[in-house]
């Protein structure tokens, strides 16, 4: 039986640089005032490299979604530092943050949120067009993203003319279109059945192998297991993380020793 190359010695084993695309340093987030303060996050350190997929797991109320909104610069931490591609977000003017969100960060939503009035190609190109990229250039990038996800042939179809699986692919294409470096996903497989949910994770992991970094928030261990690293969150604190697992070879008994 041939064994695929599954080394994880480098980030995702694909030779992408080890520079952190996302870095949270001692990040805390507190809502409300004393004595009713809620500590959504408390002293979280997290670094995600290019090519790496990190799953954040925890019960509801553990701070998973807060972590994602802070990583996506939609909210500021109460204390601590957030760096995206090496640049600190603190003190960055709002318009620059907005540009960062449009150009560098891609989002995958639970229900995919494709715009029904736009074709698959237009949906995929949308983030670039909103960012002011000329339409032909944006459309070409959108098509390239669809191509990478195997749905370029569906570019002129509308979302309601696509299968559920194709819609997932278009949504992921839209999230990675252009030169996005960081993918943020909150329960990205929503209410899909387990085979299709696994397919979403496979696609996200493949996107990472092409070089983006991803943070996927989920409460589902089977989905988290697709990630290169699983981080556990509880009451706003990181309580542990998996260390790099060995390849799957150890699960199979080598022929030679029988």
């Amino acid at each position, binding site marked *: *039986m041939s*064994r*695929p190359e*599954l080394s994880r010695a480098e980030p995702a084993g694909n030779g992408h640089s080890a520079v952190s695309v996302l870095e949270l340093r001692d990040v805390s987030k507190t809502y409300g005032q004393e004595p009713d303060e809620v500590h959504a996050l408390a002293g979280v350190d997290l670094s995600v490299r290019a090519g790496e997929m990190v799953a954040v*797991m925890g*019960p509801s109320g553990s701070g998973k979604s807060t972590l994602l909104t802070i990583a996506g610069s939609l909210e500021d931490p109460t204390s601590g530092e957030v760096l995206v591609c090496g640049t600190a977000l603190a003190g960055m003017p709002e318009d620059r943050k907005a540009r960062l969100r449009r150009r560098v960060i891609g989002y995958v939503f639970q229900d995919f949120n494709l715009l029904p009035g736009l074709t698959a190609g237009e949906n995929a190109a949308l983030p670039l067009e909103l960012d002011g990229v000329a339409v032909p250039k944006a459309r070409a990038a959108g098509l390239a993203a669809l191509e990478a996800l195997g749905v370029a042939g569906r570019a002129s179809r509308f979302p309601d003319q696509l299968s559920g699986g194709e819609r997932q692919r278009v949504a992921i294409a839209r999230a990675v279109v252009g030169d996005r470096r960081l993918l943020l996903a909150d329960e990205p497989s929503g209410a899909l059945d387990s085979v299709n949910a*696994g397919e979403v994770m*496979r696609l996200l*992991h493949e996107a990472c192998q092409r070089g983006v970094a991803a943070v996927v928030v989920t409460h*589902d*261990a*089977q989905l*988290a*297991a*697709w*990630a290169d690293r*699983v981080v*556990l969150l509880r009451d706003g604190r990181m*309580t*542990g*993380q*998996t*260390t790099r*697992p*060995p*390849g*799957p070879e*150890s*699960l*199979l*008994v080598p022929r030679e020793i*029988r």
Partner: protein
Amino acid sequence: MSVPHALLALLSEGPKYGLQLREEFEAGTGEVWPLNVGQVYKTLGRLERDGLAESEGGQDGPQKRYRITAGGREALAAWLRTPPDLTSPPRDELVMKVLVAARVPGTDAHEVIQAHRLYLLELMQQWTRLKEGEARDDLSLALVVDAELFRLDAVIRWLDTADVRLARAAAEPTPPPPAAAPVPQLRRLGARR
């Protein structure tokens, strides 16, 4: 895993040699269940004795080809439809460890649970890498890997539940001990299971 019935299933496709049976058995289970050749011949001998399979030709050893009998086909069909015995829970080592962790003074049961949770997640990551690679084009392997992932997932969910229960039990005020036989609270919790 019932090796006799797996071999009968392979023989139901046509007569086969022992070595061929071993190879097909392993391929059919995604190589997750290895089988040694001695086990194959021992099982074939027993199937022959019970009239469920018969050998062709007089030679012994690897030259011998086996075929399924009518009785073998019936036994296989009956086995497929017989539910495995799931009535009594297996004595689960992890369950024991968590029960013990909850009782041993000075042990942080939450920390014990966390260690097992991380280990199980790493195991699930390994199985998922298998699913991502080889199991893509190997239906048998994909089915075996899914079964393993669901099993490990269930164990993690049980750990999560145990964690919550223990935290709640620790937060609750200790109820007044029954007059007759005072029992520690955790003992009561374990006994309710």
